[in-house]
């Protein structure tokens, strides 16, 4: 049900965008919506993180995944069991940029005769990593639409991203020459990786079982965003100069639709992207912010060495020694256990 709902939802979004073009709501879709989406995204994300930060971390609870710092001659696993702030930064870096924990992934196999075995399983790690990195590169490449002149760094990323395609035109069907402009690998990888993650959710019974609409929807949305982008770049080409005139007008706060017409595909693309931005802060996509704040990953494992303070350390009743001795004095004396007060 959640799956079908998500399909309907993204289809409806495309329909809304097409209707918007038909009803000439271009200004709304290309100017009002992007501003609103960006504001919702940045303020929403900031608010969510701020809200998390308002809750304290009462205890130092890193999940230790290697040998702790202890006796001098015992070799410490500094990264998986961080012993200093620097080590935590290293752990966080590997976690956030290389998905270290996911790299450990194994797959359980239940074999005949009741044997349980574990195999290495790096597919989720690989495609997760490809998905996120290619998404980042795609976003960075799009920055060419928001700077004039285009910064060298953005050009360099585009250059690197199209490196393999240099002079290697792919033959397309009649009249469709998909090789121009140069094939940007990040877009294709993004689409492939997102499709993999989607199919994995469909095919693996356990993952399908746990999937909610909030899992299907963003994946489908991103797949459609990638598809519309790829179509615009290689097939139903849009007037990029007109697009950039529009985006620059947004960036410089002089919003205006360009005189030249822009293909409907662009409006579909931008409505989907804006939906993603607006949806982001209210969804699981907030793992972008949350991964930085996870107490099992971002704390030093030195709880015995440096005292961690809990700001709400509760006031509680204790059963004191004198109460205890009052309860058992006679038996203690009889058993020859020293007491504070003799009878």
């Amino acid at each position: 049900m959640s799956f079908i709902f998500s399909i309907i939802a993204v289809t409806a979004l495309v329909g809304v965008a097409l209707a918007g073009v038909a009803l000439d709501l271009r200004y709304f879709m290309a100017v009002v919506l992007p501003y609103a989406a960006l504001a919702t995204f940045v303020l929403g994300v900031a608010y969510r993180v701020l809200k998390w930060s308002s809750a304290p971390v009462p205890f130092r609870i890193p999940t230790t995944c290697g040998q702790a710092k202890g006796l001098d001659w015992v070799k410490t696993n500094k990264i998986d069991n961080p012993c200093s702030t620097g080590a935590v930064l290293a752990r966080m870096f590997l976690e956030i940029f290389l998905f270290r924990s996911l790299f450990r992934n194994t797959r359980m196999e239940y074999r005949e005769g009741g044997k349980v075995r574990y195999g290495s399983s790096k597919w989720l790690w690989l495609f997760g990593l490809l998905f996120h990195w290619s998404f980042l590169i795609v976003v960075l490449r799009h920055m060419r639409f928001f700077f004039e002149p285009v910064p060298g760094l953005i050009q360099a990323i585009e250059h690197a991203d199209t490196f393999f395609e240099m002079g290697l035109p792919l033959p397309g069907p009649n009249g469709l020459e998909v090789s121009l402009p140069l094939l940007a690998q990040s877009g294709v990888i993004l689409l492939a990786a997102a499709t993999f993650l989607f199919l994995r959710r469909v095919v693996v019974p356990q993952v399908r079982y746990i999937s909610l609409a909030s899992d299907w929807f963003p994946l489908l949305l991103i797949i459609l965003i990638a598809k519309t982008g790829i179509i615009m770049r290689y097939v139903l080409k849009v007037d990029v100069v007109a697009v950039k005139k529009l985006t620059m007008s947004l960036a410089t706060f002089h919003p205006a639709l360009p005189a030249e017409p822009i293909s409907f595909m662009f409006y579909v693309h931008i409505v989907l992207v804006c939906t993603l931005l607006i949806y982001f802060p209210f969804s699981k996509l907030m793992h972008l912010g949350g991964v930085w704040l996870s107490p099992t990953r971002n704390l030093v494992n030195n709880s015995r060495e440096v005292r961690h303070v809990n700001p709400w350390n509760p006031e509680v009743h204790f059963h004191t020694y004198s109460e205890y001795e009052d309860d058992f004095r006679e038996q203690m004396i009889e058993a020859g256990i020293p007491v504070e007060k003799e009878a």
Partner: protein
Amino acid sequence: MATQTPKPQEILTTLGHQPPSENWMDTKPEFRPGMYCHPVKIASLEGMGGKYAREWAPAEPDWKLPADWKGIVKEGLKDRLNRFRSFQVFMDICVRCGACADKCHFFIGTGDPKNMPVLRAELIRSVYRGEFKTAGKILGKLAGGRKLTEEVIKEWFYYFFQCTECRRCSVFCPYGIDTAEITIIAREIINLLGLQIDWIGTPVNACYHIGNHLGLKPHTFKENIEYLLSDVEENVGITIEPTFNRKGAEILFVTPSGDVFADPGIFTCMGYLILFEHLGLDYTWSTYASEGGNFGFFTNNETMKRLNYKMYAESKRLGVKWILGGECGHMWRVVHQYMDTMNGPADHLEVPKNPLTGTVFANARSTKMVHVTEFTADCIKHNKLKLDPSRNDHYTVTWHDSCNTSRGMGFLEEPRFVLNSVCNNFVEMPDTTIREQTFCCGSGSGLNAGENMEQRMRGGLPRANAVRYVHEKHGVNLLGNICAIDRASLKPLMDYWVPEVAVAGLSELVANALIMEGENARSTNLRGEEINDLREEAGLPPIDFPDPDEEGGGEEGDE
């Protein structure tokens, strides 16, 4: 309620991991004997000031929840969202990638999809969305939200007392979402309604009022240790006279009370006593702080603090310099990650220093508490122990890393170093089942009761499976560990799945290998088993023990 635990083959042949076709929100747990624990006794709950103590039974439809139960739960949830960032973040950021799904020993052993860590967390996350989040309130199930109902509470009780807080899932989660943290908080909330299991509630009450989980009163505690010492006298030939509640000792020694109570923990306890005697350590036991473990950790953080308090309080009263802790898993999670925060700073103590080697335990500079295994390792490294590892030659040992010391501390190499120093045959289980990936015994976090035996045997299946693997491949016949709950629970687990393998605490093996001044021929181990019988079983030639004062015919083994 007499419970028939199914035979191992019955479990293995019926086990499957395919989820059912209906949505998980539409399925209910079945309270089947053997798969859940008895509710807490009224007196135990009231003894700790707990509210809503009453007679109730999980299998019955009416749980007699307090009138405003819904308000209590919602308030409890909100309060904890504000106090624990972990809880808030973990409620919000799971992407349900499923990496954790097959990492849980309860999922592997039961095939119940709600034992996948992700779904266990969703049990509470769905209510968080359905009661607190706009989308969840409006769209309900579609947004993964649901309302708080009595059925939900029952489900929470069933599944949050089917999680041992072992943190294995958290190792694999790309955001470090820790189901232990979620279970801890969920149990706090369930507890608000007077819903607790007896195996946790009664030990907690006993520990608070009497000094230890088992409710051993001071004289009984002392007698128990003296009883162990008479066995030591017989099997090792030395007399040990430890002190209790002695002021002015250098070190206070605290260990889980299980170690003075039941086989095979008592042999570990004999191990400590022999080791400290060997070293001539200036230490004392306490009958007041006679519990290292802390079942308060499985109750709520306030109770954990109330129980843990006694260690520092007693160390202050006795005027010791520092505290030495015995072999225990969750005790060390609490000591390492919570104690100083809750009950510190321990300014009345000194930075621990090994009086024999001079080693300063800088890693325990603030908490001032040292693990007996790191202490032993330090002594061995400085050649302070006279050891004959060949005395353990009849054992082929494999090492069970306890969840808490592995994933809540990182205590991996110290026990291995000690183990390698005291025995000659040590083989590891497969990499995916040890160290930070170690599997729980299946009975941790207060679930080692008797009435939930099927649950425990299923939960321990992955651990036992790995032991069986090395047993078949390398002839392993002993499973070593440094955890009192392991010692209590791995024994029935091995009896059930791999009966050829015995269970022992590390200090027992240390003491077996220790060459004591004035000792006898050592023709028996600490358990009183004839060494030559054990050697024969292991296919080793017998040792020609000297026969000073009628050591007894070495061939009378009863196995």
